């Protein structure tokens, strides 16, 4: 978590400083673009690898003899990862916009809000797919590949629809969260069956 909270703003700042021609783009806007793609990617691959490893090693057996629902094991991981990633993203965006305010004297609040919603949507959708992939597969390599392509592509498609003005950011967020919920339910069913085999 410490690495996320420090690393995310730092990486965004570093890339901002090293990128040659941004055409006067504010740090806040640049950070928004970086964070929205990085956050989901990092979180989802970590989550799917973690679930695959723990499932194949039999870590969950000792939970199953205690009054713990199988679905709660998955949900707890999902919520923890998404919460950490969103918190890190919020911190990074606030710091970047704070820098812009000190540098230029203005902050685009609407853009900040939009960036947050995009980040949350991408994190929720890609992590939900990661949880499903982790519940289905035993191979870490295949899991990572599927998570990167299926999870992140799906979340990008949902978000792109708002960026292309097909629908509002709020509508895209609502659809994204709905899809994440459905995928999570499916993952819970698959996880329960896989643990029983």
């Amino acid at each position, binding site marked *: 978590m410490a690495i996320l909270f420090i690393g995310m703003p730092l990486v965004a700042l570093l890339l901002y400083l090293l990128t040659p021609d941004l055409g006067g783009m504010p740090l806040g806007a640049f950070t928004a673009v970086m964070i929205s793609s990085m956050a989901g990617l990092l979180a989802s691959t970590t989550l799917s690898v973690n679930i695959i490893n*723990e499932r194949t*090693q*039999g*870590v969950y*057996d*000792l*939970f*199953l*003899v*205690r*009054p*713990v*629902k199988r679905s709660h094991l998955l949900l707890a991981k999902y919520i923890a990862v998404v919460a950490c990633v969103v918190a890190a993203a919020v911190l990074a965006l606030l710091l970047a916009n704070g820098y812009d305010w000190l540098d230029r004297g203005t902050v685009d609040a609407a853009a900040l809000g939009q960036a947050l919603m995009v980040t949350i949507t991408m994190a929720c959708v890609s992590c939900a797919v990661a949880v499903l992939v982790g519940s289905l597969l035993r191979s870490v390599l295949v899991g990572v590949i599927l998570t990167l392509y299926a999870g992140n592509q799906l979340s990008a498609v949902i978000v792109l629809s708002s960026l292309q003005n097909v629908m509002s950011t709020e509508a895209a967020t609502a659809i994204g969260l709905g899809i994440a919920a459905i995928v999570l339910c499916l993952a819970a069913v698959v996880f329960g069956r896989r*643990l*029983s*085999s």
Partner: protein
Amino acid sequence: MEAIIIEELVKKYGPTVAVDHASLKVEEGTVFGLIGPNGAGKSTIIRSLLGIIPYQGGKVLISGMDMADADAQRKLKVGYLPQKAAFQEWRTTEQVLLTFGRLSGLEREHLRNRVDEVLDQLGIEEYRGRKVNKLSGGTVQKLGFAQAILHEPSVLVLDEPMASLDPASRFQFKKMIKDLRASGTTVLFSSHILSDIEDLADSVGLLQYGKVRYSGPISGLEKKVALRSELVVELADERGDWRSINMPGVDIRQPSPGYLVVHLDGPGQWDEVTPRIMEALMRAGCNIRSFNRHDPKLEDVYMAYVGGSN
């Protein structure tokens, strides 16, 4: 009263029948040993009993309740140590115990005290702050045992608990199991180390090809394979005429040069008969170097049963 009832349990993995109408009963406050060759179904029976995997037929109960039911898990105190205990690697030893203790219903002060107690009991206090991925296999196994007894269960289920332990740790585990039995805990454990089963178990269940071939006291198993106690006599030379000895109910054979094996036809009074056998051998001119009585061990009985000689 039976603490554990398994009746006509059937478990299939696809077309393969892993457990075939197995039935066992474990009395409260006793230690029951589950033995059998690899793939016999011991772990499958244990996992079905604990509600970890579903089964296709039969009935499995702990203290009258089905462990697949969440209500049973809340009410019953069952401890479990799997064949290979695994934990989330980023947790420390203490964090593992605190987490499982909370999930088992222990709270704050009592939980902290129990964590201190089990760490001390198992001799892993020095690893309290160490992450699981930095622990040796034996220490992980001890941590597994610690989480199994942390909440003072009334029924303890151990799957090959001593497989990866050094002799001193095995001795420690065995002492703890004996203490648990003395305090009224029911223990069901599977093991390939038959001497441990012999030391600890009040009764055994022998599994082969998914079927329970025997369930009951160890002495009953010995009677089933009709292995006899024997007296092994080592001779200093081949000069004696042991073949001339004719004692009713005594059978003397020579399996290899320099050794004689004596069996009694009936249940023997070895203490009475041994001096008479020694006297007869010496009168026959045999120079005896040493003699030893060999009672059939569980290993001999197991090999006779599983090896198909019965």
